[in-house]
């Protein structure tokens, strides 16, 4: 791969393996959404599918963490996410308050239990 970066140039590689394969799905979405309004069945289904994918992404990031987050035990991550949710509900559904509480719990748990 390093060779390809040298042969083709890093910016051409970026366009070929990053920009184009990523952007194509946005453009397919643009063409599909032509002429559809907010109440169209396909639009309602798409929103549900996108929300489910998002939930999958969130669950994956918390349960199957990678990188430095993986060194903090799963139990600590789950307790921290729960703290975030409780703070969010108590503080009139404030995302900011929830994130703050969750991160604080993660730091405390991480300092005690990290391996």
């Amino acid at each position, binding site marked *: 791969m390093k060779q390809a970066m040298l042969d083709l140039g890093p910016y051409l590689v970026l366009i070929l393996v990053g920009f184009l*394969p990523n952007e*194509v799905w946005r453009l397919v979405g643009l063409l*599909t959404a032509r002429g559809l309004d907010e109440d169209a069945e396909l639009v309602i*289904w*798409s929103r*549900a599918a996108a929300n*489910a994918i998002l939930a999958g992404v969130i669950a994956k990031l918390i349960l199957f*963490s990678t990188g430095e987050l993986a060194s903090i035990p799963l139990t600590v991550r789950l307790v921290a996410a729960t703290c975030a949710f409780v703070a969010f509900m108590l503080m009139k559904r404030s995302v900011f308050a929830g994130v703050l509480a969750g991160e604080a719990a993660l730091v405390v748990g991480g300092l005690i239990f990290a391996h």
Partner: protein
Amino acid sequence: MVAPRTFSSSLAAYVAGVRSAWTSVFMVVLAGTYIGMGALAHGVGLSSWWLAVSTILVWAAPAQLIMISALSLGGTLLEVAIAVTLSAMRLFPMVVALLPLVRTPQTRLRTMLLPTHFTSISMWVESLRLLPGIDRDFRVPFCNGLSSGYMGTAVVFGFAGYYLAAGLPPLLAGVLLFLTPLSFFLSTVRNSRTLIDVLALVFGFAVGPLFTYWHVDLDLLWTGLIGGTAAYIVHRIRRVAS
């Protein structure tokens, strides 16, 4: 029903969008994410400008992560392109759900190119929440402002992470990585006002980890297809029943 917020000009709507970006929790999230991305790019020997251009052109953190790590691990160009395109499929339903909310019947296709390119998780979540409160004639500039605010933040903090790279203590790196799932979790919960939104999230939370645990290929796409369709079916049945 409150009257939708309107503006004196497109520029005013754009500026209001930028301001919304900079006062939202995603500002912190993107800063954290791209500090990590910058550190990664530095670690594998890519240039900081290459990272900045990739943030602008690709504008999807998962795809950038895949691209950078796969390139550094020596994947072939085709392998990297396939991995990126598989991660990008989720953008399709997001764009289809978002664009009808952004445009007016008169809006041209080429005017929609920019909001289409800007579609990413943080922008999608915030647009779905904020756009219904904005006068429809000003949604495109507002949305572009919101997205440029986010993108600018990501580019700047990508540089910051690149030059801070070596100095991140592990616990701080863990805190940065935890920002993304936490903020996505709480903001999607906040955005879910209808039954179908709530069900899609619940089904996604339930099904997603099982697919990942069982090492099912394309786990996230199956989660979207099955979780989303299940939520949609319940929504249809309830609508017919009432």
